[in-house]
């Protein structure tokens, strides 16, 4: 890391001596429209991943809890499998899914509905969604297991008390389950955010070494890679990587602070959640 930081303070010559340029690469970043575009794409993509994966994982966790005992083990295994598969392998498999006329997604989703084939990895309107779907496939099962563990930790007494008070299933979910899961949710949100922020293999396999059509899928790591290996500007690329650190740290601080605040009044604080809303 130290060498990378030193690289970010040196000029961009690929061969021969470089000179000390100080913070010049960092100061250039706000003027680089592609960098700003990559940053906004990355934030949108991280948000999309969270919005898609968290509810899906929670739903899967509920289903797992209700599954018959003999099926639970195999279901957990299959849900865990994509999370254990190297992202490069998943992305290569996903090329089969996203393939235009011959792809699985078009065959099982678009064609039965009478819709035209979608160009999942070339249409700029669909590229970010395709990347988010790759993340959904990869992590929803893994996160579901974490949520399942979190749900198992909620004392039954809370649910029993709420039911006695006349709470419906939806109110139980809103006022007992969700508050109890806030620290777990904060943890998985931080995990998913970090993973989405540093996404590279999936984007590289699906879109190439930049961002696809009209930079629709250009992410920070992709742009940093492009700057280094297509433009040969290693100093600038290193500066981009280090410039992302404050953003990552702020996002993580925000998420963990939320978790810290909401630990009060949850199962993790040792006190029961407030039930008057029920």
């Amino acid at each position: 890391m130290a060498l990378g930081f030193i690289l970010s303070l040196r000029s961009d010559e690929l061969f021969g001596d470089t000179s000390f340029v100080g913070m010049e690469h960092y100061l250039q970043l706000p003027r680089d429209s592609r960098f700003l575009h990559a940053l906004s794409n990355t934030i949108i993509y991280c948000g999309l991943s969270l919005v898609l994966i968290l509810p899906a994982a929670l739903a899967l966790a509920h289903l797992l809890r209700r599954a018959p005992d003999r099926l639970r083990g195999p279901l957990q295994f299959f849900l865990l499998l994509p999370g254990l598969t190297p992202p490069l392998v998943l992305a290569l498999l996903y090329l089969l899914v996203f393939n235009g006329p011959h792809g699985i997604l078009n065959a099982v989703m678009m064609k039965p509905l009478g819709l035209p084939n979608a160009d999942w990895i070339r249409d700029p309107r669909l590229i970010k969604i395709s990347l988010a779907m790759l993340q959904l496939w990869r992590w929803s099962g893994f996160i579901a297991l974490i949520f399942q563990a979190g749900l198992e930790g909620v004392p039954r007494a809370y649910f029993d008390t709420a039911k006695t008070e006349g709470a419906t299933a939806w109110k139980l979910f809103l006022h007992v389950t969700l508050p109890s899961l806030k620290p777990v949710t904060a943890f998985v949100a931080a995990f998913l955010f970090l993973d989405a922020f540093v996404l590279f293999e999936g984007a590289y396999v699906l879109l190439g070494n930049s961002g696809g059509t009209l930079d629709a899928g250009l992410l920070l790591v992709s742009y940093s890679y492009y700057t280094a290996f297509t433009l040969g500007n290693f100093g600038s690329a290193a500066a981009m990587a280090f410039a992302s650190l404050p953003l990552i740290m702020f996002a993580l601080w925000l998420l963990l602070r939320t978790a810290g605040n909401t630990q009060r009044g949850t199962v993790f604080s040792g006190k029961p959640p407030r039930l008057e809303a029920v």
Partner: protein
Amino acid sequence: MKANTLLRSLLLFAGAALAVPKPLQIWVSSQADLKYYEKMIGVYKQKIDTGFHAEVKAFGFMEMPDKLAIAIKSGINPPDIVQFDEIFFSLYLKGNIPFVDLTDRLAKSPLGTGILKQRMGLFTWKDRIYGVPQSVSSVVLWYRDDIFKELGIMPKDLETWDKFDAVGMKVKTATRGMIALDWSYVGILLRQRGYDFYGADGKPFPDSAIIAQTWQRVADWSKNGIGLLPDRSSIFEPEFFNSYVANNGVLSVMGPDWYGLDMIQNFDQAHKGKWRAMALPTWTDSLSHGNKKTSSFSGQGLVIFKKSRKVENCWKFVEWVNSDIDANVDRFIGGNCFPPYQPAWSDMRLSQPFAYFGNQNLGQLFAELAPTAPFTAQSPLNAVIVNFMREQYFGAVIHNSSTPEQALGGIKEQINLMMGGKKKKP
């Protein structure tokens, strides 16, 4: 006693290790090239220099330039000789060029006059030559003869691009196109017409209107259903062969000699004997020059790293492998590329029939087309323009998200910003 023995053994081992000369490192970017150069090293040792030691390492085509950049930037284990694509070579033209200037050596070598002049531009910058090209890269139309026969298409029906379009409109279906589309076609067709993406001075887009018009032709192929665009917009990916080619979805592909000899042969074993090659249809409009039946695309060559400790040994091998007739013939017969070294063209072995291509005499076709190949210039912007075309704008034009004029404007603006220019206000 035991310590003495151990010390003596260690010293012997160290001495032995130091005495063995470190082999020259040659980096290539395909398995076909790995086999070829390993064989050539053996032949060179036998024929020319028994003390020559070299090791060949093959990396992925897109990955090798990345590894090379890291090796050069860090100074850790760089190769001595690299078989480099001219597009990636352009990355190194903006500052201190890390490859040996071969201009004076080539002037004294048979390669200087023997290599096809049109190809020397690939590794030339500011009148200095840094590499020896290893292929003519004549672009032809590779076509499925079995489907042509089934549909009643004769090669003579495709003598011009207008005739090609007419036939394409007749034979297209929802799942089959006359030609597979690729981002490389814009440059190929442009060069066939007598133009290029940049001038001899390396400055981009000297003929924007022609470039836009040519690009529109390719876009129209997609719009009219004559052309099918593979996923990732590339005919160079294995997925293209596993899907569109396997399902008989395309009748033809435009590509250079090495595309058919290397890629089609290796990736489409299922259709052995069914592929053929023909000269490109010609342009008949008044803006196109030369009535060319071929064009050029990309091409690799050998460059020598400046910091190699054995530059002369490297040069001697590079000169030999590119000027030895047998080595040139082997490069073609081995399924690699048609050599640009003209004295090799008269060798009868280059005229033998290719079983994979239905016993077609490909050598004769390439030897006829090669002298008419367009001149290729180099530019520090080459890799950048190719990247913008391939990754961003080609698909956008095909998808109607952008017109060719807008795409060219976008590329120009990006290049301008890269050079430190200011973003234009809308």
